């Protein structure tokens, strides 16, 4: 590993540095603001280091508060992060034959942003692209942990009225949804998710609506597969 490859990896990761530290800090502040956690920084450190997932980092604050059943935790984690499985599919070839520990670390640290940087692959000529990817992955990993932990410390230290700060989570999901709906192919699935959630909300209390909503969604997707799958083939208008 040379300083040249480090410099390249660090330069590419700068936008992620900005994004992860600020977004992580927001999630950390939320976790500390939850109030009844004895050691928010410790839990922030553990969850950010092991899960490395933005949406989860926000929603786990809600889980920690209401002791959401673990089955539901597993189910929602699955639905939120299923896209990571798709990223892996496109990396299958590239990661073939590399040492198992390095492979495992690259798989473990796969996020939207890290994936994008690894695919972009700005390895300087003559350097190892594996080194480059490992550096990008560890830098991004570090930024995320630092952001979340700093946020928990900040949140515990700042004496302000934080009522309503949990809207940050709602806002995050609205932002992701808005961006996803820019792409035409995502609009019908998003609408199906919206309708299924509303139907589930009518029949179940809010803390029990997730699983019925997911089942409705799966049913709808299997039922309308012919029509929805056809959308994929159309060029993006």
């Amino acid at each position, binding site marked *: 590993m040379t300083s040249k490859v480090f410099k390249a990896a660090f330069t590419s990761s700068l936008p992620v540095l900005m994004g992860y530290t600020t977004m992580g800090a927001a999630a950390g502040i939320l976790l500390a603001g939850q109030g009844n956690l004895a050691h928010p920084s410790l839990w922030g450190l553990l*969850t950010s280091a092991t899960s490395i997932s933005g949406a989860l980092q926000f929603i786990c604050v809600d889980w920690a508060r209401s002791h959401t059943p673990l089955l539901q935790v597993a189910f929602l984690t699955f639905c*939120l*992060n299923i896209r990571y*499985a798709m990223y892996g599919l496109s990396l299958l070839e590239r990661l073939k034959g590399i040492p198992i520990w390095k492979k495992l670390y690259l798989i473990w640290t796969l996020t939207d942003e890290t994936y994008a940087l690894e695919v972009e692959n700005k390895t300087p000529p003559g350097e190892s692209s594996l080194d480059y990817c490992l550096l990008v992955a560890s830098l991004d990993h570090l930024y995320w942990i630092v952001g979340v932990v700093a946020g928990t410390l900040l949140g515990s230290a700042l004496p302000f009225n934080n009522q*309503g700060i949990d809207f940050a989570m709602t*806002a995050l999901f*609205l932002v992701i949804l808005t*961006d996803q709906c820019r792409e035409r192919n995502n609009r019908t699935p998003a609408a199906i998710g919206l309708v299924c959630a*509303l139907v589930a909300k009518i029949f179940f209390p809010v803390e029990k609506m997730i699983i019925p*909503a997911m089942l409705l969604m799966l049913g709808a997707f299997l039922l309308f597969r012919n029509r929805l799958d056809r959308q994929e083939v159309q060029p993006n208008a």
Partner: protein
Amino acid sequence: MPENTYLFLMATTMAGVSLLLRAFPFLAFGHAKDGGHPPKIVTYLGRVISPAAIAMLVVYCFSAYFKETPLPQKSWGMAELLAGLTVIGLQLWRRNPLLSILVGTILYMFLIQR
């Protein structure tokens, strides 16, 4: 369940499921001779579940605001609606997630703390 036990199990579940998802293609198709082509149904569901799950979470988050206080006593959800529309509008306009989240949240905190 004691607080720390729950939090530990929660963190383990989140991390375990995330890792399994990330590793899934390598576990399932890593050894295939054709370089790994997953069944079409897998790619299809993977593509459509993601936006649907996010839309569902939006409904979930908004419903949670009215769990304890019914609609009329919360000014019919005006604060939530206003802050939500601000987030969407800003994101459409500036495409800056942090800006949209920050402005939306501060507006919401201002509206409900008055």
